[in-house]
Each structure stands twice: as structure tokens, then as C-alpha cells.
């Protein structure tokens, strides 16, 4: 994958870390997945590669539909503010990504730049889960991580793996569906999708 495309994927990931609106974040992770679909189709050499790209596309569109439905059904009266300001989140995400790149010597992918992009997306996903209070952003953080894994599968020497792409797609949709059930139930119980309400269980 070209360096420019990798930068676009990473930039979209960083935007999800700092963006405020849930619907914009949903659009960003979907766009990111569709960029991956485009690359997968461009790089496809066999029927299996096209099927893998198709699985990725179905997953991207299905998740976008599910998340937008959840956003429309759980309108917040006031925006849910993150625990930390956007700039601090961005700095934390970049620092974590650099630390991961330093800690993980090699993943055995096609290019070192590809490995860095994968690790950056994983880091951004983890930082999103750790620093955002809106429950939907927690799920979007997981989607960011899984987009990173889809990129890793595409960057494997010798081409992508159908098993991994289809597996990730099925798994992510299943988890997102269950998360959607809980997101709605949390909203119904607390009147908000703010995870700050979910802090009663401590020792």
C-alpha cells in the first residue's frame, strides 16, 4: 500500500480520537473501512481476495447503518464531553502509537510503514476507548482497532487472508450488535449514553 494511503488511514484514525460528534465519527470509521476495501479490490489477485474485500465492504456498510440507527434512537440532550480535551487526546494517541512502534520491533508485514500504520490504528482505538465517555465511542474504538487488523491482513506478505477478513467481519458485527443492545439499554436506564454513569462497581 502506498505511503499516502497509509497516511490517510492514520489521519482518519486520529480524527476519530479528537472528533466530538458521534455521527461524524461513524462516518470516519466507515470511510476508513471503505478505503481499505478499495485497496483490497485493487490488490485482488484471486476470487478469494475479492470475497475478502466484499466481506470488509458488507461489514463497513452494515456497521455504519447500525451505528447511525443507534445515534438516531439515542439522541443526547447535551453532548457527552470526553474525560480529556481533544488536544490532550491527540497527544496521548500519538505518544502511545510511537511507543507501540518502538516496543514492537516487527510484525512480519510487507512494509515497516504498513506495520507502523497498523500499530497506530490499534493505539488510536485503545486511546479512544480509554478517554471517551460516550458509550458509542467505546465501540468505535474497537472498530478502529479492527480496521487496523484488516489493514494488517492486507499487508501480509503474499496478499491478504480470506479467513482473517471474513472472521473479523463476522466477529465485529456480532460484537457490535450486542454492544448496540447494551448501548440502548444503558440509554434507557440512565437517560444518557455517558459511561460516567457506569462507575459504581469499585473495590
Amino acid at each position, binding site marked *: 500500500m502506498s505511503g499516502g494511503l497509509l497516511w490517510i488511514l492514520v489521519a482518519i484514525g486520529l480524527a476519530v480520537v479528537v472528533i466530538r460528534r458521534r455521527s461524524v465519527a461513524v462516518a470516519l470509521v466507515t470511510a476508513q473501512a471503505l478505503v481499505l476495501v478499495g485497496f483490497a479490490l485493487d490488490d485482488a489477485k484471486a476470487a*478469494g481476495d475479492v470475497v475478502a474485500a466484499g466481506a470488509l465492504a458488507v461489514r463497513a456498510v452494515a456497521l455504519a447503518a447500525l451505528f447511525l440507527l443507534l445515534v438516531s434512537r439515542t439522541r443526547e440532550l447535551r453532548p457527552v464531553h470526553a474525560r480529556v480535551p481533544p488536544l490532550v487526546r491527540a497527544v496521548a494517541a500519538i505518544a502511545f502509537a510511537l511507543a507501540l512502534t518502538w516496543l*514492537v*520491533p*516487527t*510484525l*512480519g*508485514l510487507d512494509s515497516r510503514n504498513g506495520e507502523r500504520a*497498523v500499530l497506530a490504528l*490499534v493505539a488510536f*482505538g*485503545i486511546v479512544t*476507548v480509554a478517554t471517551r465517555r460516550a*458509550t458509542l465511542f*467505546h*465501540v468505535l*474504538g*474497537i472498530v478502529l*482497532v*479492527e480496521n*487496523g*487488523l484488516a489493514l*494488517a*491482513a492486507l499487508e*501480509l*506478505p*503474499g*496478499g*491478504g*487472508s*480470506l*479467513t*482473517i477478513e471474513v*472472521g*473479523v467481519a*463476522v*466477529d465485529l458485527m*456480532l*460484537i457490535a*450488535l*450486542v*454492544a448496540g*443492545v*447494551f448501548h440502548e*439499554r*444503558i440509554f434507557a*436506564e*440512565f437517560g444518557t449514553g455517558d*459511561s460516567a*454513569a*457506569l*462507575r*459504581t*462497581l469499585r*473495590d
Partner: protein
Amino acid sequence: MTSREQLAWAIVAAPTIVAVLVVLTPRRAVTALAVAGALVTAGLALVLGVLELRSLGAPVVGKWVVVDAAGVLLVSVVAVVGLATVLVSPAYLAGADSSLGPAHRQRHTYFAALYAFWAALLAVPLAGNLGAAWLLIEATTAASALLVGFSGKARSLEAAWKYLILTSLGLGVALLGIVALVGGIPGRGIGALSWRALDTYSSGQQSALVAYVLLVAGLAAKIGWAPVHNWLPDAHSEAPPPVSALLSAALLPVVLLVAWRSEHALAPVIGVRAGQDVLIFFGLVSLAVAIPFLWRSLPWKRLLAYSSLEHMGVIALGIGFGTPLALAGVAVHIAAHAVAKSIGFYAATPLVEHEPRATERSVTGIARTYPALGGVMGLSLGALAGLPPSPLFLSEVLIVAGGFQAGRSWPAAATALLLALGFLGLAHALLETTVGKARCRDGTLRPGSRALAMLGGISLALLLGLSALALWLPGSDLVDALLAGIS
């Protein structure tokens, strides 16, 4: 296809079919169907266990299915705990005043999710490759999260959300490790991730080690190893008591088996010592983190949850030491922990009826006001503490001795010290819970005393049987089969 392979498919198919049928069955027949399905599933698992004992050392290794000693041990444990969980669930449902789904479909929702969870749990130890095992573990997350949040109350929603997000994130990291492994293995099909193909990794020891560490660190979040265990006390304490038993006694060791298989399969590439070091690290950290909580006055189910953290640490250490003695200890520990922990969680249903404050604070003197319940709780805590002749005492001795046998004196000594501290904490909790100062309770409210006495009696017999097994196991063919794995 061999008879063991066919049985393996049947063991997974039976609960899957019941999960679907339960949804379609009229309300009045749901419980009967669930119980019948549990008996069939457990019966099939028992037959597989017998067949495996008769063919030790000759594992079945197919493209999708693996049947070996370790896998069958786990299948047997999951089957027995699953059967008991289905049998005690009606008592829980009778007192459940709310649920995640519509009230009139409460039993359908509960048993469908329970059976889906059980089917995935039974499938993981039989999965023929790492990729399928990972997918099945994710499936356990989806089904069990619905069960953790089943009551629909604020605290259970919080626990379910933490569980879903943290374990999914952890499994994402594990998948990164799997992708990295795929990069170094010839071929791209599902066969590339079969357990026997993992040692064909050819991109160098360093990158294999990175992939292995990512895989195990990700799985650690699901096993509940410290320092990535944050969801565990919440999910175990807020889930319905029968589900807590399945989470602790079955889910955690089943995922641990995947880490064990990965360590075993990758040992020729990353080095035996390096793979074991990672497990010993997680084992010692888990023990060290769990011990302070075992000394505190915690609500009953939270205390059991921290005990799970301790015992998963002990099992990690046993696998990490990797000697015949340690693996004999691991086998006994997995089975005995399942029995002792399950009865502890099953006791939580009558406990909350007897002492409603038990969900939020520690309980004392239960044996004074409700002897049958106090007896079962005492049996559970005594066994978990490692009070002789508990099989967990014997398995811990075997694991520590195995550590010294492996030449890992410092980790073995640290394990012995931490286990002694854990014993003191739980022994104190045992005394307080059973014969401590009794609070004023309604002495007439003693639901299901006879059932509790029966549960206690069966569990005591099982635990004593496991103690005898612990004395016989070292040097047996079963340990040799565990050592050989699927190679």
C-alpha cells in the same frame, strides 16, 4: 472421521440445536427442554471422556477438530459445570424480578443465551486451529455479555459493558498477534493456523515472540489475568449466580487452554523457556494482585471473583513450569477449582434470599442461621483456600514442586509464599462467613435446604475423589498425554 471426531461435532451441535429450539418452544416447556438438552450434552461429553481415556497419547488432529487429553479435560469440566448450571437456573429464574428482554420471554432469552454460550465454550477446546479458537472465544463474549447483563439492572449493565468492551479490545490485540503469525507461515487458508502448522513459522524468532506476546497478552484480558483483569470482579459479581459459575469455572480455563496450546505449538520457534516465561509472569502478577483482595471483607461473589484471579494465576504458573508434576497439578487444579467455585456461586442464589444485603457487603455467621447454606459456602471456601485435604491444596503442592523440578526456584518460592498469604486471607473469610457473628435474620426463610444439602454432598464426594486423583496422577499416562499435547 473417527468416533471421537464425530462425538466432538455432536457435543457442539447438541447445545447449539437446543439454543435454537428454546426460542421456538412454548414457555411452559422451556425448562424441561433445557434440562433434557443439558443431560444429552453432558452425556455425550462423558462418552468422549471415556473414549479419550482409552486412547491416551493418540490425539485426533483434523482440519477443524482436535481431540486430545487437555481438550477433553476441559470439555468434561465445561460439560459438568454446564449441566449443573442448567439444573440450578430455574431456582434463579424463579426469583429474578427483571431481565434484559421482555418479561414474558425471560426464560427463552436466558436459556437461548446460556446454551449459545455453552456451545461456544464446548467448541473452543475442540477447535482444530488458532483462528477458529479465536472466533469461538469472541462468540463466548457476545453470548456471555448478554447473560452478565441479564437482570437489566444498572449494576449488571455496567458490568456487562465493561466486560464486552475490555475483552473485545483484548481479543483485538490477540488477533493482531494471530495476523502476525499468519505472516510467517506458508499458505493462507485456514490450515495455516492449525496447531501443528504454527511451528512452521519462518520469519524469525524475534517476530514470532512478538506475535506470541501480543496473542497471550490479548487472551489475558479474557482469562482475567492481572493486570488486565478489571472486568472480572464486576462481571462475576453482577451476573446471575449460575452464569457466574460458568464464567469462572469454565470460560477462564477454556481460554487459558488456547494460551497453553499456543505456547506449546510455538515453543520450537520462540524457545520453550521464552514461552513459559510469559505465562509465569502473568501467573505471578495475578497472584500478587489477587491476594490483597482476599484479605478484605468483600461481598460473597466478589470474593469468589478475586479467588478466580488467584486460581487462574496458579494454573498459568503450572503451565509455565511445564514439568510432569506441575501439569498433573494443573489438571487437578482445573477440575477442583471448577467444583469448588461452582458450588460457591450456586450458593449465592439462596444466600441473597436469606441475606439480601449479601450483594453489597460481606456476610458473616451464615452457618449459625442457615446451616445447610453455611455448610456449602464453607465447603467452597475451604476447598478454594487450599485447606487439606482439599484437592486444590494437593494441586498447589504439585505445581510448586513442579516449579522446583523445572529449576525455577525463585518463581516457585514466590508462588508458595503468595499461596500461603492467599490461604490466610480465605481462611479468615471462611471463619467469618460460616461461624462469625451472625446478624439478625429471618430464621424461617431457608429456601431449598434439602437441595443445598444434596449439592454439598455431591460436591464433597467430587472434591474427595479429586484429592485421591491428585495422589494417583503424577507419573500416569494422562500426564504424559498432557505433556505431549497434540504434537
